[in-house]
């Protein structure tokens, strides 16, 4: 990991203004969806990003790709600073960074044929056209486990798992270096989910792209990730290599999250120590002062209510933002 990272996100912030007023919009508040996140991703690596609904993980993914403009901070991708670039300047870089979406029903245009859906990114980026484009699309269909004959079909003729394969083929077409996958398997049944996870891993071995894998399922994230980052209310609270994080979580939130997952093993489930967090996640409009997690944390003390803990990385690369790590 000595080479420069493929993706370097520094202090990225995305606030959404809440406006009110009839003629003149007055800003009356801000949703602090992403509130100063830094992370790095190397070539061919998978970083898992976990957190509960509303923690800002999807907003972070979109802000990295400049699908929404960040409020501040820096995103360096393959040597280029992305923040502040115009759409025109971004276009050649977009070829290198693609996205796979959660909902295989909403993310494919129902009026377009599969061949066009998969071929369009390649055509728009000038990767291929004409007969060559069609051949590329058919190769991709074959590579993701569909058939070349599917070229002329429409999305509604496919099941959820097959549609997700189409979405993956579309992302692969331009030979990206980075794929951001936002909950790519959470709409799928477990047997199909395993197929798609294996496909994503095979493709990574073959083509060497990096994944930023956003998900709420902690089992899936452990399985696919080299490193895992945990997000709570717009901030990273912990980051470590996958096995370390799951075996020895240091942030009380990570610990509670892991202990809350019911595991498919009744005896082990009954035997392990469980922590049930009280209450809901506070609103990102008005996050608690100090450590955002102190309102639900069993180890919170006075300092947690006033001072926000910094994300501190130890010698082994295990980063934790907590005054009283476990």
């Amino acid at each position, binding site marked *: 990991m000595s080479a420069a990272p493929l993706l370097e996100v520094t202090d990225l912030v995305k606030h959404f203004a809440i406006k009110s007023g009839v003629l003149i919009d007055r800003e009356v508040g801000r949703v602090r969806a992403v509130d100063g996140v830094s992370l790095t991703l190397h070539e061919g690596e998978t970083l898992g990003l976990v957190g*509960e*609904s509303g923690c800002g993980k999807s907003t972070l993914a979109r802000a990295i790709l400049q699908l929404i403009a960040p409020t501040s901070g820096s995103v360096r991708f393959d040597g280029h600073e992305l923040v502040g670039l115009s759409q025109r300047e971004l276009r050649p870089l977009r070829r290198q960074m693609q996205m796979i979406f959660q909902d295989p029903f909403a993310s494919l245009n129902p009026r377009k044929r599969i061949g066009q859906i998969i071929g369009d990114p390649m055509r728009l980026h000038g990767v291929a056209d004409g007969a060559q484009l069609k051949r590329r699309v058919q190769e991709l269909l074959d590579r993701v486990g569909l058939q070349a004959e599917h070229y002329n079909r429409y999305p509604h003729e496919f*099941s*959820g*798992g097959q549609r997700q394969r189409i979405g993956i083929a579309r992302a692969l077409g331009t030979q990206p270096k980075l794929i951001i996958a936002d909950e790519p398997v959470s709409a799928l*049944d*477990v*047997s*199909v*989910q*395993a*197929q798609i*996870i*294996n496909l994503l*891993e095979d493709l990574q071995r073959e083509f060497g792209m990096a994944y930023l894998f956003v998900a*709420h*399922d*902690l*089992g*899936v994230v*452990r*399985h*696919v990730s080299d490193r895992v980052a945990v997000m709570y209310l717009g901030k990273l609270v912990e980051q470590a290599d*996958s*096995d370390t994080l*799951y075996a020895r979580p240091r942030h009380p939130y990570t610990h*509670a*999250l*892991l202990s*809350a*997952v*019911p*595991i*498919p*093993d*009744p*005896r*082990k*489930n009954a035997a392990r120590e*469980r922590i*049930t*967090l*009280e209450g*809901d*996640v506070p609103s990102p409009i008005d996050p608690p002062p100090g450590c955002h997690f102190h309102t639900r944390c069993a180890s919170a003390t006075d300092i947690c209510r006033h001072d926000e803990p910094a994300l501190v990385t130890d010698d082994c690369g295990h980063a934790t933002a907590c005054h009283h790590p476990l």
Partner: protein
Amino acid sequence: MSPILRVADLRVSFATDEGVVHAVDGVSFDVNPGEVVAIVGESGCGKSVTAQTLIGLTRSPNATISGTAIFGGRDLIDLSDDELRTVRGAHIAMVFQDPMTSLNPVYRVGDQIAEMIRAHREVSKREALTRAVELLHSVGIPNPERRARDYPHEFSGGMRQRVMIAMALALEPELLIADEPTTALDVTIQAQILNLLRTLNREKNTSVVLITHDLGVVAELADKVVVMYAGQVVEQASLDELFYQPQHPYTWGLLGSIPRPDEIRPDRLPQIPGQPPSLRNPPTGCRFAARCEYVFADCVQPPPLRSGSGIGHLDRCWLSADAKAGRR
């Protein structure tokens, strides 16, 4: 101990433009008093249709329903809509997956619960409201007096699911049907709701039919497990037997393909190839055969649901007991 619900040979099919869909095809199971029975399976296996049919929600002109579901000496399948209405709510209650759409957005939460109580019991509005507040308190909603006057949109997803559970429990039903009660919730909130359901089951001895796709949730809550595939029960066993001595290749596949947060990852996740068959035209033999790695000549015949290993442990597979034991 006689079961409080005995479902026998339940069949539900729907006529559609593309042909008849046999959604539920001969499902039988018992629910004993105080027992939590989980029905697990993937999308389209017929688990939700089974649950909804029990309380009459699948009755429609294009549906054909047969079989029996004996509850309190009466057959739920045979009851008229009016008779069923007196059972529903008072004796059998249901909690749905989506707490966002199961509450009426224009009525205060307390009023909705009170109205439910008054539809079944002769009580004044004030008494019903007092009871609603008690119920909200019992499911762990803070400041229940104030919250009863709030509208559904003022509650978070987890709190709304608590409201649904409060409403389901208002008339102290003997049976609660919970259809994916925690699927829409985050894991920390899911843990709270599962705790709540377990407490209610233990303290009030309410029987629960739990519909879920999540084997983790099953492991947490169930006493008995029914595994469904393509409209049929493929395996039925006690919780421990199902997890530690599963008998059907589909169950093996399901248990194997879950990525575990508590174990070092395997190099490759075991997967079940292909996808479930269409229920318009299901295969005549074993319905899982096309995806099964143990398939052999006998599988072209439909296997019966029978006990091969222990009393009460049923599976629908032609493999010999030795072959199954050898696989484990």
